[in-house]
């Protein structure tokens, strides 16, 4: 039984990413002696929050349709609108309301993506590249967004903490913000929908083979449109979490975040060609890249070499999982041949 499950594990990309993570963690621990300390682990969790939320957008888009690169700008624009409206209203109530405003605008922007992609059958990469430029123009041109302080409801939420640890040895503290709960809720919802509902299975079916999905009775257009609307909403949540965690709204810090998130998702085993990808893989890929970018100073890599390191990890990680899945496919073919 145990041998069987190990065999199954070996076929999963996630398993290899997991191995890389363990190896890296041990390496960092040996080099710096600081990896397995309570404050470092909490810091790592904190750093993962926003990229993991964005990773959901990337995953849903890849699995169902193709790349979506618009989430950072949707996040920027929708969280700007929500923050601005809450500030102007002098809103002091529960922060949920601010999130709802943000999600409303985010879903509106996502709907624009979805509409163009579904109606005109344009490639999602081009459409989302285009819309991100538009959103960026609206944000910095039309609204002239600038750095701003958060309204009271958001600031209060940002100051609360879920968990505070103090490292007994070094006396250094670390706090896990409340936004971590949002991350957990999002992943639980995504897990339930993707695995236990028809719509969720439809998302995978659609990316695997569109025509078969349609013949199987899935409403392909509605599901695809829905994915982009949902993506807009998730991006808005990510953007608000980012603002809450930095305690300020920073309009120019969103753009450019998509590449590392997409790299993380691909690392986690999501196929760029659709139909394949797991939440587990998403989290592991994000964890790996966050670990790398947050530990280079700990292990003493010189500033100018840090980007080389990150690039190398992306390539090595993707290569290992690609080779592994290819060898899996070859074995399958062999078995088929033998059977024939």
């Amino acid at each position, binding site marked *: 039984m145990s041998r069987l499950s190990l065999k199954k594990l070996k076929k999963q990309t996630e398993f290899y990413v997991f191995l890389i993570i363990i190896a890296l963690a041990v390496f960092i621990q040996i080099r*710096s002696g*600081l990896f397995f300390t309570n*404050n*470092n682990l909490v*810091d790592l969790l904190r*750093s993962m929050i926003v990229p993991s939320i964005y990773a959901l957008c990337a995953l849903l888009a890849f699995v169902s349709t*193709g*790349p979506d690169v618009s989430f950072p700008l949707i996040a920027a624009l929708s969280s700007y609108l929500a923050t601005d409206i809450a500030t102007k209203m002098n809103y002091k109530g529960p922060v949920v309301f601010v999130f709802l405003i943000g999600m409303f605008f985010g879903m509106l922007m996502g709907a624009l993506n979805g509409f163009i992609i579904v109606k005109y059958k344009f*490639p*999602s*990469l081009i459409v989302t590249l285009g819309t991100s430029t538009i959103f*960026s*123009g609206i944000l*910095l041109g039309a609204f*002239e*967004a*600038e*750095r701003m302080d958060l309204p009271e409801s958001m600031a209060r939420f940002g100051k609360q903490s879920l968990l505070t640890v*103090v490292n007994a040895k*070094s*006396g*250094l*503290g*670390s*706090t896990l913000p409340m936004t971590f709960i949002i991350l957990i809720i999002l992943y639980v919802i995504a897990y339930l929908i993707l695995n236990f509902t028809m719509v969720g299975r439809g998302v995978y079916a659609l990316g695997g083979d*569109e*025509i078969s999905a349609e013949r199987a009775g899935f409403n392909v257009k509605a599901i695809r449109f829905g994915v982009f609307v949902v993506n807009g909403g998730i991006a808005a949540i990510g953007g608000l979490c*980012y603002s809450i*965690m*930095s*305690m*300020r709204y*920073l*309009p*120019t*810090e969103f*753009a*450019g975040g998509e*590449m590392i998130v*997409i*790299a993380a998702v691909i690392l986690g085993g999501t196929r*760029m*060609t*659709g139909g394949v990808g797991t939440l587990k893989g998403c989290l592991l890929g994000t964890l790996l890249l966050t670990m790398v970018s*947050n*530990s280079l*100073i*700990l292990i*003493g890599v*010189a*500033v*100018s070499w*840090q*980007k080389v390191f990150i*690039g190398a990890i992306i390539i090595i990680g993707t290569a290992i999982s690609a080779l592994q899945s290819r060898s899996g496919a070859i074995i399958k073919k062999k078995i088929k041949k033998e059977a024939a």
Partner: protein
Amino acid sequence: MMKKMKKMVALLLATIMCLSMVACSNESDTKDTSKADSESSTSSDLFDLAQYKSDKDKSEWTIAVVTKDNTANWFKRMEIGVNEFGEEQSIKVIQKGPANADAASQVQVIDDLINQGVDALCVVPIDPGAIEASLESAMKQGIVVVTHEASNQKNTLFDVEAFTSEDFGAALMDALAKEMGEKGKYGMMVAYTTSTTHMEYAEAQKARQEEAYPDMELVNGGAVPTCESEESIDTAYERAKEVLKANPDMTGFTGVASTDCPGIAKAIEELGLGGKVKVVGVGTPNEFKEYVNSGTISKIKLWDPKDSGYAMCSIAAKILAGEEVGDGSDLGVAGYESVKLIEGDNRCLIGEADIEITKDNIEDFDF
């Protein structure tokens, strides 16, 4: 059909990712080609001020100021000085910034302005190397080019600085040393290792420390800088936390981009190191107020971007008018009444315009 398209999309995406990664390495190429160009063509003429004298009336001039990031308070303050100059001299001035604070977007803004036919470009470069080619083509078209915070920019008629990087870096170190009691370990943060001025400040801080404060020590075996904030408060916070974790015995931190110190201060407060680790840095009073008042940031050293914006426009207008600009020129604004000319990679006009802000005088500066 669908499969094929998906493959193409995948390929396209991969290409974009590759391109964005090699974007940095491209800089050196453009630098080389621009150098080769200027050597083969009439390079000496390009820097002859006389040929930039404008035939148009002063009221028809357009002076464009290009910033790193127009949304930052720093450059909003600069805009005040730029507009002040425009009103006083009745010259049309515009200030533009890239949509994202990265070198490629800034090149785009500069190229757009060249195409619009402005008479002068005053640029605060994100990465001087990346915009050499654009600035050179502007000068070839007779557009006056003035820069700020880029003492190594080659294709510029004048670079204006509030002070020499050496003096300012030394002043930062003096301020930090005083806070730290002239002993202990410290770290330094810059925005990018490609930000020339930031690196000069960093080098000058270290040089000053080695010369005057032997009991102080830069962490990581003296590597300059200790870390990069990438012009992001959140990244500054993450990196500062990492540096402080790796060096639990350090007692000082400096940051030279406006994003650095708020990030460092946030990390220090969260780690529970407030009061133990002193912070001295460059930035704007308003954004630092909370941390200066709480005591986490001890001192802000800076120059007033309002005045440097004014000074840049003033130089550009003088050149357009055919007036003499050089050692001892009066740019008409405090701190730049008699600028010093230093010729290095370019002609650098240097004022004496540094200011120090502490808890006591922070209310006097509103930007």
